[in-house]
């Protein structure tokens, strides 16, 4: 490259940098991250803009697309709460990170740790001696009035000594340039997993920039947090469990992601049981002690016996186990108490009273209206304040959606609020309305690309590690879509950004401290909760059942296209098999083609391909922590594909769709086969598939393997994917006995029934035995017999009754597995009809 070219290039880059920021105008009266109070661009930001400009517009687009694809491929979604079907949204990433300088970070870090110490101490007192209330430092009514003050936990001392172990703070930069705490999250803070994903996505897309900026790494924080929890695991019968409300929760993705990342077992309430004030996990090897729970379930729902009786997500008796100090829960049940907004007004005084220190980070000025002077102040300044619920998320009838700007409240509503303030002031706070700082976001592409300011808020995390509090050097930045929005939440549309804490020195690639819990090598992961086993089993069954339905559909559609075969009679048999497999209305779908189409596309009837694909996805969604992202992707793609309308209704359209879906299933099978470690989870998945495949081939033989007509036998070979083997073995037209022998009884043919039976027998032998004294369990006995019978049967002598007997045995094996390993459990989606 000549000097001249280099010069021109850097001049172009300089021009691009200039264009990127030419129209960047901070909002009046609002602090900005990019442009300092002196009107000059902050140096670290300028460096970032120049680096991006150096990349060139095409490269920038490419990099951003890479980051987006990473997030989509990892299945990063958040769910709109309470909607069962689908509404999972891709996670919007704002590609410009939020940059924080080392000096500023040091102060934030100190402020966060101080706050964690303070809130933990307040919780200890509120659930303990109550001194802070008694001496007037904190009104007793604020504690007693919080819906998160859980009375059954009063007097319970948490195992490990801390109510708080994972804590998040929402902070924003105020107009004066200082950081302010907007709210505290002590119940079960979300977002840390998303922060990790954002980090991975962006650091992979901008690896060179990421390295050159000396960005602090996140891994050490999580390792320390994990070590802190592992240290509480005294019996080590199970790993630390992450207790989730389940796949319908809006942040379920994150629960599964964190469980996998931290090496914890993902459990729902049903996976746990309390016996004699001790918590056990139901596993395929029986009940195992669970010593430590990382809780993502709201505390009130954690125990229907002593807390919310309407909860179906909790563990009856859990509060009792906590009182007996038989389980450590992070955060402790009741830790949500310190989220109450009314607390904010008292924290400066409490910091001096409890810690003997001034608060390093101020919080939003807050007036609790349970006090006369404060209430009068709020009433007088009503229009300049935010009026908010003091103790919970809402005040029914008055502040149904939480906080409101005083100036935005209608006169009639204001009159009601002021009357309520007089009678029940304790339910309300007035808060200073804070305008958050703006941070640069990337808008447009190519030469049109510009940086524009948008309001933002940071969520930062503090965890209890092995030896004390530790702060995540990074976080989760929420960015508003609207230039003037004050409240930033993702429900209102918006994006998230990675938070880069910059260091003056190069940052080590990997964390410095070896985590003590990582040293011992392990080849076996012992704890498989029964519910996870059951969902793996059903995932296997549903995927295989989808495949069988698709193969039948394909065979029917192919018979029409391919005139060489004697279509009608064969199609009739295939159609009968299809009618048994699926269940679409006979009257509505008079022809085999119409039925094949219905099985392929009907989302209303049972056991159609779209319904089966959906059932597969649901079963998979419950055990996402146990599937690789690629395998999950296959199942999700399969469902998505089956939901799409067909382009046309011809046999070619049907064939194309069936083939596309079968390819996805083949990919899933390949991933499971090649990438899943041979542990119990894999065995359940595999057993489910083998049972279902055995059922499908037995059924196919009953319909197409009994008459001996060549067309039917040809179809049977196709269904069993055994054409080539047959042709190599027998240089002749399909004949009944050799075909049936090949697809049913040849234990070396991976599609044959005998092969499935033998595999099932071997798989069951490797599962934890529930049969006493070394005797075979009922499932083992059935499988052993079935393997022996199919392995020794004579194809010429095999009648329909024999085959029906094989199918019954397979279904009984399924039932016995359920009894032995999943008792009292429902599958993710109960299967209609069969099994």
């Amino acid at each position, binding site marked *: 490259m000549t000097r001249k070219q280099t010069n021109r290039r850097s001049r172009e880059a300089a021009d691009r940098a200039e264009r990127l920021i030419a129209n960047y105008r901070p909002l009046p009266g609002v602090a900005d991250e990019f442009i300092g109070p002196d009107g000059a661009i902050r140096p670290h930001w300028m460096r970032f803009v120049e680096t991006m400009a150096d990349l060139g517009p095409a490269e920038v687009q490419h990099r951003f697309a890479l980051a987006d694809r990473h997030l989509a491929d990892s299945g990063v979604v958040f769910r709109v709460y309470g909607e069962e079907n689908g509404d999972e949204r891709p996670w919007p990433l704002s590609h410009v990170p939020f940059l924080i300088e080392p000096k500023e970070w040091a102060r934030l870090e100190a402020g966060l740790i101080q706050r964690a110490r303070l809130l933990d101490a307040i919780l200890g007192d*509120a659930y303990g001696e*109550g001194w802070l*209330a*008694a*001496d*007037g430092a904190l*009104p*007793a*009514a604020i*504690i*007693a*009035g919080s819906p998160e003050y859980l*009375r*059954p936990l*009063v007097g319970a001392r948490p195992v490990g000594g801390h109510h708080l172990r994972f804590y998040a703070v929402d902070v924003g930069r105020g107009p004066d340039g200082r950081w302010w705490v907007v709210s505290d999250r002590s119940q079960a803070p979300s977002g840390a997993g998303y922060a990790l994903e954002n980090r991975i996505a962006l650091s992979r897309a901008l690896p060179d920039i990421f390295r050159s900026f000396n960005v602090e790494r996140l891994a050490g924080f999580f390792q320390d947090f994990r070590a802190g929890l592992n240290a509480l695991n005294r019996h080590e019968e199970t790993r630390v469990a992450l207790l989730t409300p389940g796949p319908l929760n809006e942040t379920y993705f994150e629960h599964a992601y964190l469980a996998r990342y931290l090496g914890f077992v993902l459990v729902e309430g049903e996976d746990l049981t*309390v*016996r*004699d*004030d001790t918590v056990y996990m139901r596993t395929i090897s029986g009940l195992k002690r669970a010593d430590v729970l990382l809780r993502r379930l709201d505390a009130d729902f954690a125990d*229907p*016996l*002593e807390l*919310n*009786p309407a909860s179906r997500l909790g563990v*009856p*008796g859990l509060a*009792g186990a906590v009182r007996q100090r038989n389980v450590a829960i992070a955060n402790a049940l009741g830790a949500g108490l310190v989220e109450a907004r009314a607390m904010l007004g008292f924290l400066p005084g409490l910091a001096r009273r409890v810690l003997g220190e001034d608060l390093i980070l101020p919080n939003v000025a807050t007036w609790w209206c*349970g*006090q*006369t002077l404060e209430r009068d102040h709020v009433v007088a300044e009503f229009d300049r304040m935010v009026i908010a619920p003091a*103790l919970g998320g809402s*005040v*029914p*009838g008055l502040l149904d959606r939480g906080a409101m700007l005083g100036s935005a409240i209608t006169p009639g509503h204001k009159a009601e609020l002021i009357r309520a303030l007089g*009678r*029940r*002031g*304790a*339910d309300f706070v007035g808060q200073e309305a804070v305008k958050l700082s703006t941070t640069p976001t990337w808008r447009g592409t190519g030469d049109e690309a510009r940086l524009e300011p948008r309001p933002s808020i940071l969520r930062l995390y503090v965890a209890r590690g092995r030896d004390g509090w530790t702060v995540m050097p990074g976080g989760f930045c929420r960015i508003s879509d609207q230039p003037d929005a004050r409240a930033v939440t993702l429900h209102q549309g918006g994006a998230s950004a990675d938070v880069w804490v910059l260091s003056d020195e190069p940052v080590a690639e990997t964390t410095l401290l070896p985590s003590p819990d990582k040293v011992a090598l392990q080849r076996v992961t012992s704890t498989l909760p029964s519910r996870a086993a059951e969902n793996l089993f059903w995932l296997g069954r549903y995927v295989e059942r989808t495949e069988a339905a698709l193969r039948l559909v394909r065979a029917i559609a192919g018979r029409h296209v391919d005139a060489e075969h004697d279509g009608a009679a064969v199609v009739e048999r295939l159609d009968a098999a299809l009618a048994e497999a699926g269940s679409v209305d006979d009257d509505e779908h008079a022809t085999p083609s119409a039925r094949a189409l219905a099985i392929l596309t009907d989302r209303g009837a049972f056991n159609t391909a779209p319904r089966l694909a959906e059932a597969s996805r649901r079963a998979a969604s419950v055990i996402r922590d146990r599937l690789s992202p690629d395998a999950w992707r296959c199942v999700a793609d399969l469902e998505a594909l089956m939901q799409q309308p067909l382009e046309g209704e011809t046999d070619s359209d049907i064939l194309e769709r069936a083939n596309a879906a079968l390819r996805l299933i083949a990919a899933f099978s390949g991933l499971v086969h090649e990438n899943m470690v041979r542990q119990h989870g894999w065995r359940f998945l595999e057993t489910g598939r083998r049972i279902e495949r055995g059922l499908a081939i037995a059924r196919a033989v009953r319909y197409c393997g009994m008459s001996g007509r060549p067309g039917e036998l040809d179809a049977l070979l196709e269904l069993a994917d055994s054409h080539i083997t047959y042709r190599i073995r027998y240089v002749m037209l399909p004949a009944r006995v050799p075909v049936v022998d090949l697809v049913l009884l040849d234990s070396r043919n991976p599609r044959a029934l005998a092969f499935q039976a033998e595999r099932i027998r071997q798989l069951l032998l490797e599962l934890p035995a529930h049969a006493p004294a070394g005797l075979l369990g009922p499932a083992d006995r059935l499988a052993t017999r079935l393997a022996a019978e199919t392995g020794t049967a004579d194809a010429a002598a095999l009648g329909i009754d024999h085959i029906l007997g094989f199918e019954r045995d397979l279904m009984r094996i399924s039932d016995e597995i359920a009894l032995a390993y999943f008792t*009292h459990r429902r599958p993710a989606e109960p299967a209609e009809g069969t099994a």
Partner: protein
Amino acid sequence: MLYDIRQTTRYRYAAPVPFARQVLRLLPVARAGQRVIAADLVITPAPTERHDGLDFFGNRITTVAFAFPHEALTLETRARVAVEAGPPLDANATPAFEQIRDQAVADTDLGPTSPVHFLFASRAIAIDEAIGAYAAASFPPGRPILAAAFDLTRRIKADFAYDPTATDVTTLPGDAFAKRAGVCQDFAHVMIAGLRTLGLPAAYVSGFLRTLPPPGQPRLEGADATHAWVAVWCGRDIGWVGLDPTNGVQVAEDHVVLAVGRDYSDAAPVDGVIVTSGDHELDVEVDVVAVA
């Protein structure tokens, strides 16, 4: 007054229950004006686990678990309790209700009898502006708390119909208020909702009521039932005073306290999680016999 109390609660399940875990509040404890001379709870069949203890509000709770299939459950309480009414109160000499409101929210005690626990919405009782407006008619400015609360007690007795078919155990106070009908639990809930909406602390009390026999006749065995009423906080000096809106009376020696809480869900005699596919039948018998 000395009472012998016998309460028998029988559950019959349509299908065997393989597992159950329950919290029972079926044993009285000593409280101001009440002494427990003897109290015993017999559970049939014998549970797999049983723990006796006190809950936050000082109620005696028995936590039981049954880890075997059972088709019936019988809970039998026997107790001898002495009840002594305190010196009569001059309702008109109690503090103005506004003063009670300010005192309650500023109370510094977090203990179980502190008014702060009884000021706010609870699981079964929401703050309800409609009930608040109804209650407000008894609370003109400056009226002494007990006089006003007693007036509200009598108005509920007069305005509401006692009708067991109008409501069930899960009925919310707003619904019972709209119907102006219900049973003791509903009347207590409505009164508490009214008081709390006005910023006044009110507690839910469950227990037994001795039905006074008509003159010259023997009292009817088994005619009594589990009862519920309200306790209103009348300031630090007086404390809690019982008011019974079902009967329109102030509580004296005819009421025996079983459990106290913010609402029915804190004081429910039987609360639990059972694994079952079927329905159940419930039958409760109570005898409260004055022995001296």
